């Protein structure tokens, strides 16, 4: 009895946990955003003499420079336009590709479902700019420094619009992001009761009428959230526009943000980052609105779903071929191009002498600079180790924090604190990565109160990483906590277990699997993260992804591609291990 009736004035440990989490998350998520606002209207030390104002004084000159000056078109306005146009196009393309592919794999009697479903997720496990790297390896023309692309070497002349700029960016990022749409639609299709379509059919609706009046509206919530998520991701992506846009001075907000940071314009950088966060905030608001709007009917379903596949009939073989070819083009082709290039002095020149192992194994490559081959390079090893530390520790923190937040959100449901924690921890989900990186840069550039300056430290990268992927672990934790219910804990309470005993002997052991898979997922994402860390990396503190970009900067295409392959290898390996250990996979259930 004593466990159930709380003594007056005694402290509820869950509430304490909730308050601590709220404090931590406010500092790590809300404050950086606020900081960006102050940074964009405050005179920076670098501009003191130029502005003739004291450091820290209020100024609107950064806004003026970004929005209404001779350089505003270059710095902000055209990057903004480019970003919006590209993000719109990519979102449209990935949504259509993902929808069609998910429909084919979940709703028809196509063969090899499970294999297709597993393969369709692979592009998302590659670093986001892998496609850009493969593209440039194939299409790069002679106007740029370094080895020309394979096609040029083979004698073709590649026009600029095909080699660089918006068109290749859209194609490459569509290839990278369509698995997101595929996963979301695949899961949604799986949940939809096919009897809803059959009811319409019974009432006289043909296939087209059923698709338009029943299936599409029912899928609308999934479509909306896919659009929002893809849009947010593409706004925040850095590697691809950097690789493919820079040669023709095609800038997006993310690359412009990076260049202003590089050229020492912290004020303008804050303005651009702020713009990205505003886009993110708009997306979050839209997401909340959409969810509320659809809430009245998204709760439906869950029972009696007998999925009867659509019979392809004579289309069976062509459809299999089509999906197979598509997956070949988005997986095998780019990876082969990347791999092939690392074994050739001049990629595309198919003569015996041109093949080489030096980029991997030479003590000193002879090509352009005297750098050692990748596997002989002590820097690579230390950078890889940093990557593992950042992603690994970040994922651990992220998983722990996510589990605690999930616990607090579910157990404190009746309080407003629960809502605050949930919304705050979801925020990074739709906030562009590079904008978030910039915010962290600003927040931790100098010491504030008890918190020291963390700029240029491993800790900052780890912190940023664990916050960036918090939505991943929090979401899975909330749903599995809700699924677990309060009963296991209550049973322990009846038997006299205190809060900490319950936490460590009941809650965490039950949540072990979801916790573990959340951590692994965050780890995998962290290993290939670029947008976030590009702002936080400094000479001497690099991770694999930033190293690859440095090689690109130095026109060492083969080395850059090699690093991408190493990252891909590590993420594939981790994915395979996690699937073996947790017996779950991203595409689970979609392939039937």
């Amino acid at each position: 009895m004593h466990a159930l009736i709380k003594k007056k004035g005694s402290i509820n440990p869950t509430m304490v946990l909730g308050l601590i989490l709220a404090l931590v998350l406010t500092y790590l998520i809300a404050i950086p955003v606020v900081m960006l606002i102050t940074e964009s209207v405050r005179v920076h030390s670098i501009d003191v003499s130029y502005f003739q104002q004291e450091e820290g004084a209020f100024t609107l000159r950064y806004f003026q420079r970004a929005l209404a000056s001779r350089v505003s078109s270059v710095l902000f306005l055209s990057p903004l336009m480019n970003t919006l146009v590209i993000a719109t196009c990519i979102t449209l393309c990935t949504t259509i590709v993902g929808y069609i592919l998910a429909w084919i794999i979940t709703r028809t009697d196509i063969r090899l479902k499970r294999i297709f479903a597993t393969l369709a997720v692979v592009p998302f496990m590659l670093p986001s700019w892998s496609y850009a790297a493969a593209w440039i390896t194939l299409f790069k023309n002679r106007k740029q420094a370094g080895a020309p692309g394979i096609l040029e070497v083979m004698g073709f002349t590649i026009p600029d619009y095909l080699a660089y700029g918006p068109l290749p960016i859209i194609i490459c990022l569509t290839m990278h992001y369509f698995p997101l749409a595929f996963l979301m639609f695949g899961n949604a299709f799986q949940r939809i009761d096919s009897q809803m379509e059959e009811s319409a059919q019974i009432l006289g609706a043909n296939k087209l009428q059923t698709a338009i009046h029943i299936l599409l509206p029912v899928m609308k919530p999934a479509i909306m959230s896919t659009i929002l998520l893809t849009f947010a991701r593409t706004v925040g992506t850095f590697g691809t526009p950097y690789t493919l846009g820079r040669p023709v001075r095609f800038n997006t907000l993310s690359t412009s943000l990076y260049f202003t940071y590089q050229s020492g314009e912290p004020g303008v950088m804050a303005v651009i980052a702020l713009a990205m966060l505003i886009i993110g905030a708009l997306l979050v608001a839209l997401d909340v609105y959409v969810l509320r709007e659809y809430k009245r009917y998204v709760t439906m379903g869950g029972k009696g779903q007998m999925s009867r596949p659509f019979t392809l009939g004579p289309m069976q073989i062509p459809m299999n071929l089509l999906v197979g070819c598509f997956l070949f083009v988005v997986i095998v082709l780019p990876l082969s191009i990347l791999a092939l290039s690392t074994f050739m002095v001049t990629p595309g020149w198919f003569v015996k002498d041109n093949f080489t192992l030096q980029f991997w194994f030479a003590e000193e490559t002879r090509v352009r600079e005297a750098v050692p081959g990748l596997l002989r390079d002590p820097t690579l090893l230390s950078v890889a180790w940093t990557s593992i530390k950042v992603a690994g520790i970040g994922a651990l923190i992220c998983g722990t924090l996510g589990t605690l937040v999930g616990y607090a959100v579910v157990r404190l449901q009746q309080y407003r604190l629960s809502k605050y924690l949930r919304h705050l921890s979801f925020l990074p989900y739709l906030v562009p990565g590079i904008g978030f990186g910039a915010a962290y840069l600003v927040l931790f550039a100098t010491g504030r109160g008890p918190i020291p300056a963390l700029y240029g430290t491993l800790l900052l990268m780890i912190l940023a990483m664990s916050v960036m992927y918090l939505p991943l672990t929090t979401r899975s934790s909330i749903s599995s906590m809700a699924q677990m219910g309060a009963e296991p804990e209550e049973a322990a309470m009846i038997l006299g277990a205190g809060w900490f005993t319950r936490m460590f002997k009941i809650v965490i052991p039950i949540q072990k699997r979801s916790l573990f898979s959340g951590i692994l997922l965050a780890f995998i994402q962290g290993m290939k993260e670029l947008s976030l860390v590009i702002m936080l990396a400094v000479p001497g503190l690099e991770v694999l992804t930033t190293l690859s970009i440095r090689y690109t900067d130095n026109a060492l295409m083969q080395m850059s591609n090699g690093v991408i392959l190493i990252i891909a290898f590590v993420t594939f390996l981790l994915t395979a291990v996690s699937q073996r250990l947790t017996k779950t996979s991203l595409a689970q259930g979609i392939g039937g």
Partner: protein
Amino acid sequence: MIDIKLEHIVKKYTSDVIAVDDLSLNFEPGSFVCLLGPSGCGKTTTLRMISGLERANDGVITIGGEIFDSPKQNIFVRPEHRKLGLVFQSYALWPHMTVQENVDFGLKLKKISKEQRSRIVDESLDLLRMGAYRKRYPAELSGGQQQRVALARMLAVQPGILLLDEPLSNLDAALRLEMRSELKSLHERLGSTIVFVTHDQLEAMSLATHVAVMKEGKLEQYADPMTIYLKPATEFVATFVGSPPMNMVGFSDLEGQRWKAPFKKAVAAFIRMDADDQRICKVGFRAEAVTLKRSDDPHPLKQNQTCIKGHIKAVLPTGPEQIVSIVVDDNQFYVVTPPSLCFENGQSVDMVVDLTMIHVFDQKGLRI
């Protein structure tokens, strides 16, 4: 008033999974037919073949004198052209439409004028007492209300045939009873042919004019409910229908069960067969065929009665009566008695079986 004729229907999902095996059934116009059987017996598949959502591999389906499905003649009428109604177990209401829009959808497809449509929608919703909820979304309704809307949606298009796939199984007991009487009175008012799938034998008994009992894709018996109950054609029907289940005595294993021989003898004498006849494989009697007496109470057996001695295991009162479970060696029997009779656990009792109410089955499980 439309009739349905199934002739030698076969449905295979894969070459070795046969869902429906040579099924022939005739549903008379205006009848309320129940397809009854355990899950996986092919009853839902049969319903889906009638609706056209599934195609038969062999056989002929004729509805209202017109062939709708005949693989041999290469005839298949698509479900959207069959003009029938089908209510699913999950109701499958469209969550993005209000109640009114759900009901209106089928009418819109029929290109009926707006005024007429709104009149029909009103009528259908009023018929099922859902008029007050027309603006609500399905997620805002209770299970029973959703069920009514699912019915209204199909009734609005005035189908000659209404197919129901376990429509009551997601409802709680009280609501289920209410919806049963609603369905029955609806059938009487509309007069359309209704085919109803269920695994609940009580539901089948109380609703249907005809019951088709199925097992493993095959028809076991097709008759009116009372015949199914009183004269089960097979051992399976006998045990599947009725609650508590029919008591069964098998004679294959007589080892250590000395009471079985005299029982078999009495049964054989009653049906005028030889007690050694191998065809008498199992004998069943329902709980109400037994009168229970205390063993220490003298009770001379009347004609057409026989007696089995056993011990009380448990007494389960249900209110108006009580179910008494009795053990005889390793066998367990159920007997229904008035609640006024008092028994104690372990007490010796005599089960007096009325031989006019027994059912005898042969090795194949067929009624003798």
